[in-house]
């Protein structure tokens, strides 16, 4: 796994950079997922905030609190960060009620990164469910960027949600789907009038599509139940546990391995993760 970025000792890791919400995109029909584009108020913050796909930040709404949110933008998209947030708890709800122009806090980047160096020259299969596409999107846009596209093989995207209204990043899905260097399958759980895409659960569609494991890496994120069946399906398809990468969520506070709550066995998800290979997960207690 990639190494976490480490702050210097003189920096207070608990004090966030200030950032302004500059653009809010409604992602789902139910309006329970929004993408927040933010820009640092102090441009020098970019020197301190160098991230790679897979990392997360502690995002705060002042007066309400902080929550760990994966960075959904790619470091190749310069000048802003994006966080796609589902309205779930207190902080994410407060964020949903924050209009453009609101000043929020952002500290990080935290955690390890997707193993980008190990993926070079390989085909990459992205398998996402619902809001689980958010962390994958950072890596997808990194791999598809002009600067880095040549470093990777073919890209396959298998993405599903409960209904067409629950699909996130719809405009990007269209762009990705139109590219000749990507095989993309978008699926919804149940048939809908007017839906011409695939119907079925992500693991079932994955089995039909049957990507080849040779020289490939699979990267997956979604609801726990989906991940569970995706992992077993990939195993059936011949993927070794080392070839499968996922990213985990845990309740967190500090983000820097001190507050003690996000561990799975001796691994802290905030510091040793959130990105783990299936191989690593097999060696860890099933407590997540």
């Amino acid at each position, binding site marked *: 796994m990639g190494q976490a970025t480490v702050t210097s000792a003189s920096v207070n*890791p608990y004090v966030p950079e*200030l950032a302004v919400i500059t653009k809010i995109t409604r992602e789902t029909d139910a309006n329970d997922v929004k993408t927040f584009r933010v820009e640092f108020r102090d441009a020098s913050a970019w020197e301190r905030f160098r991230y790679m796909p897979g990392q997360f930040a502690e995002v705060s709404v*002042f007066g309400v609190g902080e929550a760990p949110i994966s960075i959904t933008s790619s470091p190749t998209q310069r000048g802003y960060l994006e966080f796609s947030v589902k309205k779930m708890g207190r902080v994410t709800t407060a964020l949903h009620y924050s209009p453009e122009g609101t000043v929020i806090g952002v500290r990080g980047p935290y955690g390890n990164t997707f193993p980008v160096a190990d993926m070079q020259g390989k085909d990459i299969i992205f398998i996402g469910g619902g809001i689980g596409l958010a962390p994958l999107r950072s890596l997808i846009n990194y791999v598809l960027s002009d600067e880095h596209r040549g470093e990777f093989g073919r890209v396959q995207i298998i993405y599903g949600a409960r209904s067409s209204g629950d699909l996130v990043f719809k405009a990007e899905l269209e762009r990705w789907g139109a590219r000749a260097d990507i095989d993309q399958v978008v699926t919804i759980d149940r048939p809908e009038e007017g839906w011409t895409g695939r119907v079925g659960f992500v693991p079932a569609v994955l089995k039909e599509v049957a990507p080849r494991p040779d020289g490939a890496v699979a990267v997956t994120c979604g609801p726990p139940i989906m991940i569970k069946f995706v992992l077993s399906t990939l195993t059936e398809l011949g993927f070794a546990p080392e070839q499968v990468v996922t990213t985990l969520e845990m309740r967190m506070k500090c983000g820097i391995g001190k507050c*003690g709550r996000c561990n799975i066995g001796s691994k802290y998800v905030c510091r040793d993760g959130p990105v783990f290979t299936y191989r690593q997960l097999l060696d860890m207690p099933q407590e997540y």
Partner: protein
Amino acid sequence: MGERGPGKALAMNKRDLGAFVRHLAASYTVLAPIDEGGVTRFAVAGGDDIRGSGDPESVPALSKRPLKEIFFPQEEVLFAFDAGGKVEAAAGAAAPADEVTRVAFGVRPCDARSLTLLDLVFDAADYKDPYYVSRRQSTAVVTFACPEPGVACFCTSVGGGPYDETGSDLMFAEAGDAYLVRPLSAKGEKLLCGFDAVREAGDADLEAAREAEARVVGRVSADVPVDAAVSKLAGAFGNAAWDDVHRKCLGCAVCTYLCPTCHCFDIGDEATRAGGERVRNWDSCMFPLFTLHASGHNPRPSRKERFRQRIMHKFNYFVENNGRVACVGCGRCVENCPVNLDVRKVLEAFAAL
């Protein structure tokens, strides 16, 4: 510094202890175990007021609340913010770290040792906790060798002992009418500067000290098979023994609050109309909310998983990450548990698997 030669053992008469505290209080903020409504805790002391009870020549007893709170307080403001989004870090993080301004006086060896475990967390190689680190650097630790181990003590089973010097800057040890005084760092050395009642130890002091130590060694009665438990716990996450050992536990978390090495905390905002503060508070793995996701999912849904987390963190996960058990054997969790759930018995049970 009197007529002391280099490398010679030093001593101080017990009747001079009060004067030494006053000497320290003239230059430093002295924190010592103070009785607050029946609960002893490290707090600002002055003059002879160095412990909760009686005789200023005696050794302060093990405080009920752990030493950690003068470095990692139960509640502290990390920073304040105003409505315009201006953020200002609390002064605690900005204190000059190269100058000693505080003395923790009357520390027991187990508590001094606990600081070296907390250092592994808060003064880690990757991220430093500036609040803890600055307090730690600006504080000298004056420890008294333990003259009376309690019934719940098991320091000798976890690498410590009544005369353990780990984590101390200056060590006092019983020697009849005097104490042997041993500086263990430049910080500790400096505390003696300008205090003339420190003298070279005489043969009688050394003999009395040897006798006192011989009386104490062996008084820590518990012989907990910690090494055996640690090696068994390494493969015991899924063991059925967890189904039983936790049963008495009420989940009250007193064991973690009074533990000198427990370091878990929560961070939350306290808002006012004009802004607010970001505050951190001690938290505990014994509480269900500790790991509850916003989705409602909880990876540690019952007391079984939470009890297992506490034991595994101290005797397996911390060992894997830092090479040491996160326990100093102070016995507070044993003495204060409302249902007598004794960690020593838990370790014995796993050692016997």
